[in-house]
């Protein structure tokens, strides 16, 4: 057994030992009901913090109504166990799952409108929804209205005559549900679905352009977080035995937010530690209870000022990684057949020489009264390298945004490989064969170079979230496949040795290369490069020219290139379109463009012009 495996086994054993020791202490009564109550409350708080972390940490959005989901789950579960006349041991799991599903449904209904917003607005709207849930519950008679629900069966009494034994069962239920929840979130976060969610957090525009259906994944993360909160709520109801709508107000949401923030948004381990401390500590400090909230708020402020990444930042404790290794070892041991490595599906585009891969007919867009682009007719043939140039503000990036669905055209048509793509969402356009890079480099900064590439393979993979959680053979075969492909790709760009470096740790030039590499990983037929040479010196620019030629031949893509560096444009483009004030004013080969008086006038504003090979320095904005 190597070192890594050894540490995994050690960690799993530690977990089991903690469980056995604690449950024994409770069942024999050495830990009285006060202590077991604290342990139960801690477990539930950890579940809530970890579930909130899915939205706040993984997705990167601040949600202020999380307690609302907990209350939906709590009330649903309580109402079910109160009305079902079967043995509690059977009713409880049904109730918990129902509670989770009810909360998930609320998450879905709230998420659909709310996730259209971002940042501050999303935070406020989730606050509003959380309060609305509370008001509704307070006014429904089925939930007991102002009095709430009471005499709910308690886990610490229902399983045995002996309260200690029953409390031990309660502890076990909470402990293992918590472990499963944490493990699921952990493994999901490291699957393709987790990658998709994190990429949205890092850079939503880039994620969408890399083929991730961002709306779907935002909803997915939000609903999942709600589901887990609902289960935690159900457990809460059956621990405490009574519910009141007021408990689940804004203040409770803030309590859990504090736990997540202090532990480090994005770190599951951090959430666990901070929840445990923040629940247990007040019990030790019962004499100072008035100071509790003052201390919390001070901690919050100080954390944001001095250590915004929280206790653990986004790093995880290796114990959680043990889950993966155990699964693998278990499968080996049981001799479960492994699937052969599944390479990602590489779509082949049915095009022949000289066919038009991308075409626009009379494309245009107006913002209010301003016509940013009008009458754009562009044609891109298979394997061509075409340039799109023009002075600042001409509308070049606007054209790119139209082509990739970031803007919806107000007139005209875009045809990709014979298919009209007007009105398609960006990620779908990417799936259909266009990929792009951005003027300001948009990488997934906290992800490694390799992971940035892997995001692009998302649409060509198939395994479900469940597969991602349990790490079955579908998961491993597909992940292995894209790992090979991604490394191959990096090798083409001489970046295979920086595969595990964080994307924002790369030098500028390599960041550009990575962005292009990621775009190519989407397996496009058309590649749009937005000012790839920006900020490069002449040597880097030469290398870029070689790279672009290599890309065209190796990957058989047509390239449309926005650039201000005339050396690059003239040196590499076979054809050039010139844009000014939203119109195409010229089209032709480099020679023709160089000598075109209108083009010269547009750039320099004067009739006399010398060498068009003069390098026009990269501008701040395009």
């Amino acid at each position, binding site marked *: 057994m190597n070192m890594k495996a050894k540490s995994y086994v050690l960690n799993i054993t530690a977990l089991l030992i903690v469980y056995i020791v604690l449950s024994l202490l409770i069942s024999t009564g050495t830990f009285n009901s006060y202590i077991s109550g604290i342990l139960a409350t801690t477990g539930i708080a950890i579940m809530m913090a970890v579930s909130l972390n899915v939205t706040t940490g993984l997705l990167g959005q601040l949600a202020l109504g999380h307690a609302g989901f907990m209350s939906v789950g709590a009330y649903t579960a309580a109402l079910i166990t109160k009305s079902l006349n079967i043995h509690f041991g059977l009713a409880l799991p049904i109730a918990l799952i129902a509670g989770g599903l009810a909360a998930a449904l609320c998450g879905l209904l709230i998420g659909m409108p709310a996730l259209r917003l971002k940042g501050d607005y999303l935070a406020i709207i989730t606050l509003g929804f959380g309060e609305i849930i509370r008001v509704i519950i307070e006014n429904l008679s089925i939930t007991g209205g102002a009095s709430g629900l009471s005499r709910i069966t308690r886990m610490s009494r229902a399983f045995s005559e002996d309260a200690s034994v029953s409390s031990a069962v309660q502890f076990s239920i909470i402990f293992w549900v918590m472990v499963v929840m944490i493990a699921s979130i952990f493994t999901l976060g490291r699957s393709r679905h987790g990658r998709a969610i994190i990429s949205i957090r890092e850079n939503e525009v880039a994620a969408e352009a890399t083929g991730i259906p961002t709306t779907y994944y935002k909803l997915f993360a939000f609903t999942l977080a709600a589901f887990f909160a609902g289960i935690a709520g159900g457990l809460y109801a059956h621990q405490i035995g009574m519910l009141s709508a007021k408990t689940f107000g804004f203040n409770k949401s803030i309590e859990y*937010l504090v736990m997540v923030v202090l532990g480090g948004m994005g770190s599951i381990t951090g959430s666990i530690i901070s929840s445990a401390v923040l629940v247990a500590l007040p019990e030790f400090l019962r004499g100072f209870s008035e100071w509790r909230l003052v201390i919390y708020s001070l*901690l919050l*402020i100080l954390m*944001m000022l001095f250590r915004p990444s929280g206790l653990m930042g986004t790093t995880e404790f290796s114990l959680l990684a043990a889950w993966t290794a155990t699964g693998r070892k278990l499968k080996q041991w049981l001799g479960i057949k492994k699937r052969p490595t599944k390479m990602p599906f590489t779509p082949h585009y049915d095009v022949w020489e000289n066919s038009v891969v991308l075409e626009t007919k009379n494309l245009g867009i107006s913002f209010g009264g301003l016509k940013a682009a009008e009458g754009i007719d562009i044609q891109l043939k298979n394997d061509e390298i075409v340039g799109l140039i023009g002075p600042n503000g001409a509308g070049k990036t606007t054209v790119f*945004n139209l082509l990739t669905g970031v803007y919806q055209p107000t007139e005209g048509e875009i045809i990709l490989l014979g298919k009209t793509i007007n009105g398609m969402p960006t990620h779908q356009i990417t799936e259909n064969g266009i990929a792009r890079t951005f003027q300001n480099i948009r990488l997934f900064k906290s992800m490694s170079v390799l992971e940035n590439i892997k995001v692009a393979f998302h649409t060509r993979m198939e395994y479900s979230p469940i597969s991602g959680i349990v790490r079955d053979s579908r998961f491993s075969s597909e992940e292995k496949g894209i790992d090979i492909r991604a490394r191959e790709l990096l090798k083409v760009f001489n970046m295979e040795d920086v595969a595990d470096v964080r994307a924002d740790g790369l030098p500028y030039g390599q960041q550009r290369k990575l962005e292009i590499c990621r775009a190519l990983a989407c397996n496009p037929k058309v590649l749009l490069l937005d000012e790839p040479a920006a900020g490069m010196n002449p040597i880097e620019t030469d290398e870029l020219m070689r790279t672009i030629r290599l890309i065209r031949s190796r990957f058989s893509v047509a390239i449309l290139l926005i650039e201000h560096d005339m050396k690059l444009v003239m040196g590499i483009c076979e054809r050039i379109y010139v844009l000014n004030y939203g119109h195409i004013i010229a089209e032709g080969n480099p020679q023709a463009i160089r000598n075109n008086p209108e083009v010269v006038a547009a750039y320099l504003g004067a009739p006399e012009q010398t060498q068009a090979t003069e390098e026009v320095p990269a501008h701040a904005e395009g």
Partner: protein
Amino acid sequence: MTLFLNQLINGLHVGSIYALIALGYTMVYGIVRLINFAHGDILMVGAYTAVILTTMLGLPFPVVVILVILMCVLFGVVIERVAYKPLRSSPRISSLITAIGVSMLLQNLALLIFSPTPKPYPISFNIKPLTIGGLQIGFTTVLTIAVSALLMVLLQILVAKSRAGKSMRAVSEDYDAAQLMGINVNTTITFTFAIGCALAGIGSILYGLAYPTVSPTLGSLPGLKAFIAAVLGGIGIIPGAMLGGLIMGLAESLTKAYISSQLSDAVVYGILIVVLLFKPSGLLGRRMREKV
């Protein structure tokens, strides 16, 4: 009909106070893109200041007014310098969390210092309601509506005509460019906070006259509603805050009077959600596009 008019006036009264508070939110958001969660709690600070100054020190009313305003401004400026300024270049989520933290801190410190028992607001005018037409309008109502309207007019003039106002507008349009033009952005931002808090200070007096019990959590609900009002009118836009505040006040009063008081909270949050979904830039706002 008289009943309806009375309810309308009730709405204007509440709405005027919301408008005053909303102005603070909107000005701060306009200039530093921060939702100052703690703004509502400045109201509470003003109220407790009035309590201390009047009951413990026995100072006369005009002095108290000035000192209340100064205290609110002081708090606002200190909070800005200590908690918000260092985070100006951090991701928005950090500033938002800090603002929540400051709000919690203010409320819980007040709980600790003043105890949760509500105290009576020490200032009141024992003047009989005025009778205009068939309507009986309370003196406080008239005072509130008049003072708020006057302040809004003054603020508009300040922002549109004065140098300080120009700086404020410049910084909120383009932070970097304003700096390059020689505007001291730090001073301008502090000045904006100061004005916002001064308005909140006056708002706290008008609030105390209308709802004369002071408790540590006094500011959180009106603060939230004023924020919703600011969003409704178009956050960052001063006339928007005024319009939003009045609409909120009317919606709340009329819902309580004619539909159901239970629903008034739901209506308030409902308005927020509807606005955010259909016109996030607010009634008077312009759509801002993210540059790709």
